[in-house]
C-alpha cells in the first residue's frame, strides 16, 4: 500500500493513458444517458431495453455528446472553454451589481456599507421575489397551479420548518413528516364531526384549528426531543426515523383512532366568516396558492428575524461546535429543543392546510416524504432560507416539468441524477449559507467580500 498523492501521477503519465482516463468518465456518462432515455425492458426481457438503447441508431447522438465532453477535457478544450467563460464574464459585468439581489442575503452587507440606502437595498430582492411568485401562477395551466399549491407551496412551508432543525441547529431529523401528520390529524379531530371515528367535544373553523395543531405538533416535538437530543448524529437520525415510522404505522393501522388506511374525508375547507366578509376556499388552486404565499412570506420574515436573534445565534453556535457553545454559556439543550419545537410547529401548521383540502390518507406521511423534504432543504442550501425556497421551486418544478415527457415513475431517475450531480458540484447546496452572517460584528464595518465562487461552509463539516 502506498500513499496517494493525487497530483503526482498526472504529470508523468503518458499522453495516451491520460487521454483514456479523460475519456472514461464521459463515455460512462454517455452510455448511462443513452440507457436512461432509451426504450424500456421488462421482467421477461431484462436486457432488451439496454440492448436497444446502446445498439440502436440513437446512440449516435450520445456519441457526439461524449466526443464534445472529451474534447472539452483536453488541454486545448480547456483553454477554449476558459476563453468562453472569460468572455461571458466580461459581457455580464454590467449586471454584476444585481448578483447580490439574486442571492438576496445582501441585507446585512448593505447595512454595514450605506445605512441611508439600506432599506431599499434590503427590500428590493425579497420584494422582487414576492412579485414574481405572485405573478407566476397566472402564467401556468390549472394543473400547474395545482402543482404549485401541493408540490411547491406546502413543501416550501415544510422545508422552511425543517431548515430550522437541520440547517440552523444542525440536527438531522428523518421523521419530520410525522409532525405534519400530527397537525393534519389534530385538525381533523377538532374541525369535523364526521371525518374521524371520534372527535373533540366541539368543532371549529380550520383557521381556529391552527393553535391546536401547532400546539400538538410542538408538544410532540418537545416530547420526542427532550430525551433524544442528547444523542448525536446518526443516532438522532435513526430515532427520529423510528418516530416517523411509528406515527405513520399508527395512522395506517389504528383504525379506531385515526380512521386507518382508508384516509380521512370531510374536513371542512378553510373559510373566513366575519361580519361583512365571508369567504371559503374551495377546490380552485389559486386562492390556496395566495394563502400559502402569504404564509410562506410570514414564515420567511419571522425566521429571518429569528436567525439574528439570540436564539438564532445560539443555534449557529450549537451547529458549529456544541461543546464550545456549551462552554461559552449557551444552553445547548434548550436551544436544540427550541429548534425541534419550532420546526415541528411549522410542520403542524402545514398539516392544517393539508387537512383542509378535504381528503388525506396515511400514504402522505411516509418516510419517503420526510426524505423528500430533507432533500429539498439540503439541495437548496441548508441554513439559508432563500436557498431552501429556491431548492423547493427548482426540484419540484423539475418534477412537474418531467411529468409530461417521461412516465411518472421514471421521473425519479432524473431526480436522483440531478441530486447526485448537485451534491458533487455544490455540496453546500444551490445557495450556500454565508459563513458567520448571523453573528453581529463589532468595530468598524468590514468591507464586504465580492460575491465570488461558493466556498463550502467549513463550519458545517463538524
Amino acid at each position, binding site marked *: 500500500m502506498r*500513499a496517494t498523492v493525487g497530483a503526482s501521477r498526472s504529470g508523468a503519465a503518458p499522453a495516451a493513458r491520460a487521454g483514456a482516463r479523460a475519456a472514461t468518465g464521459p463515455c460512462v456518462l454517455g452510455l448511462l444517458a443513452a440507457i436512461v432515455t432509451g426504450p424500456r425492458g421488462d421482467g421477461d426481457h431484462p436486457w432488451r431495453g439496454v440492448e436497444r438503447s446502446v445498439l440502436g441508431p440513437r446512440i449516435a447522438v450520445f456519441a457526439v455528446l461524449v466526443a464534445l465532453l472529451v474534447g472539452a477535457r483536453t488541454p486545448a478544450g480547456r483553454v477554449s472553454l476558459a476563453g468562453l467563460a472569460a468572455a461571458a464574464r466580461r459581457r455580464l459585468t454590467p449586471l454584476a451589481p444585481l448578483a447580490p439581489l439574486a442571492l438576496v442575503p445582501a441585507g446585512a452587507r448593505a447595512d454595514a456599507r450605506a445605512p441611508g440606502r439600506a432599506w431599499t437595498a434590503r427590500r428590493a430582492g425579497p420584494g422582487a421575489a414576492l412579485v414574481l411568485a405572485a405573478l407566476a401562477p397566472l402564467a401556468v395551466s390549472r394543473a400547474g397551479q395545482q402543482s404549485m399549491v401541493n408540490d411547491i407551496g406546502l413543501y416550501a412551508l415544510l422545508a422552511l420548518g425543517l431548515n430550522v432543525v437541520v440547517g440552523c441547529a444542525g440536527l438531522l431529523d428523518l421523521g419530520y413528516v410525522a409532525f405534519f401528520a400530527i397537525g393534519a390529524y389534530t385538525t381533523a379531530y377538532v374541525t369535523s364531526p364526521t371525518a374521524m371515528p371520534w372527535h373533540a367535544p366541539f368543532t371549529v373553523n380550520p383557521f381556529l384549528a391552527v393553535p391546536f395543531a401547532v400546539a400538538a405538533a410542538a408538544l410532540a416535538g418537545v416530547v420526542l426531543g427532550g430525551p433524544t437530543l442528547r444523542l448525536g448524529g446518526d443516532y438522532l437520525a435513526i430515532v427520529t426515523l423510528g418516530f416517523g415510522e411509528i406515527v405513520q404505522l399508527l395512522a395506517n393501522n389504528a383504525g379506531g383512532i385515526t380512521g386507518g388506511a382508508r384516509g380521512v374525508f370531510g374536513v371542512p375547507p378553510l373559510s373566513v366568516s366575519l361580519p361583512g366578509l365571508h369567504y371559503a376556499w374551495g377546490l380552485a388552486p389559486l386562492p390556496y396558492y395566495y394563502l400559502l404565499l402569504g404564509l410562506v412570506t410570514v414564515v420567511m420574515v419571522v425566521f429571518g428575524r429569528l436567525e439574528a436573534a439570540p436564539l438564532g445565534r445560539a443555534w449557529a453556535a450549537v451547529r458549529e461546535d456544541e461543546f464550545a457553545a456549551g462552554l461559552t454559556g449557551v444552553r445547548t439543550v434548550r436551544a436544540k429543543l427550541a429548534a425541534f419545537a419550532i420546526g415541528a410547529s411549522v410542520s403542524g401548521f402545514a398539516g392544517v392546510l393539508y387537512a383542509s383540502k378535504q381528503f388525506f390518507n396515511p400514504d402522505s406521511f411516509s418516510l419517503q416524504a420526510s426524505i423528500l423534504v430533507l432533500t429539498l432543504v439540503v439541495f437548496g442550501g441548508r441554513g439559508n432560507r432563500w436557498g431552501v425556497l429556491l431548492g423547493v421551486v427548482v426540484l419540484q418544478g423539475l418534477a412537474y416539468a418531467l411529468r409530461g415527457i417521461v412516465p411518472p415513475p421514471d421521473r*425519479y431517475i432524473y431526480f436522483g441524477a440531478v441530486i447526485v450531480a448537485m*451534491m458533487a458540484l455544490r455540496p453546500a447546496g444551490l445557495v450556500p449559507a454565508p459563513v458567520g452572517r448571523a453573528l453581529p460584528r463589532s468595530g468598524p464595518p468590514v468591507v464586504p467580500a465580492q460575491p465570488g465562487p461558493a466556498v463550502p461552509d467549513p463550519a458545517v463539516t463538524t
Partner: protein
Amino acid sequence: MLGSFGGLFAARALAPGGADGPTPAGLTAIALVVAGLAAGAAAGGASAFAVERAAYRPLRRRGAPPLAYLISAIGASLFAYNLAGKEFGRQSVPVPELFTDGPVLSVGSVALSTQSALIIGVAAVMLLGVDWLVSSTRFGQAVRAVAQDAQTASLMGVDVEKIITGTFVLGGLLAGAGGFLYAMTFNASYTMGFVPGIKAFTAAVLGGIGNVRGAVLGGLLLGLLESYGGYLLDASYRDVIAFGVLVVILLARPAGILGARAVRAA
C-alpha cells in the same frame, strides 16, 4: 449508506440465470444456488463500486459536509432503483424455484425448512468471513485505521481511497448475496431494497456502528422483536414495536448495545 444499498438490491435482483422447467435437485440445485449468490454478490459489488465513484468520491474530494453524503446516497439510490424499474419492469418477478423446499430438521413441532437453513448457513458464513476480514487481515486493519482517523492512516501509508472503495465493494457483495436470498423468499421487485436498507441501518445502529458482532446482535434482536411483537399484538404493529424498542434502547445506550462510548462527536 442506507440509500446506496437500497438501490443495489434491485440491480442484482435479476442477475441469476433463471432455470425454467422442473425443479432441479441434487448437485444442480446446489450449483444454481451458489451461482445465484455469486451473481447477486457480483452485481451488488459492481453497483456499490459505481455508487462510490459517482456519489461519494466527488464529495470526498471537495470535503463536503456529512449531510451531503446522505443526500447524495439518497439520490443515487433513487436513480439506481428507478432505472432498474425501467429496465426490468415494475412488476415483481419471482425467482424460479431452485430446489424443493421442505423440512430438513424438526425439533418438537418446529420445523426448519431448507430455505431457512440455507439463509442461516449463508449468513453464518458471511458473518464469520467479515469478522475474520475486519479483525485479522491487513485490509481489515487498514479499514479500521481509516475509520478511526483517515488523515493519520494516509500518513502511515494506507491508500485511503482504495480502502474506502474496498469497503463499499465488500458491503455491496454482502448486500447482493443477501438480496438474492431475500428474493428467493419474497420475489424480486425494483423497490425491494428500500425497507431492508432501512432495517439494515437500524440494526447496525442498534448494535453499535463500527462493530461487526454488534451488527449481528442488532439484526437478530430486531428480527426477534418484529416476529414476537407481531405475534403478541397484531402483525401490522410489528414495526411499531421494533422501532419503539429501538428508541428506548438508544436512550439507554446512546452508542448502541455493543458500541464504544462515543468520544466527543467529531
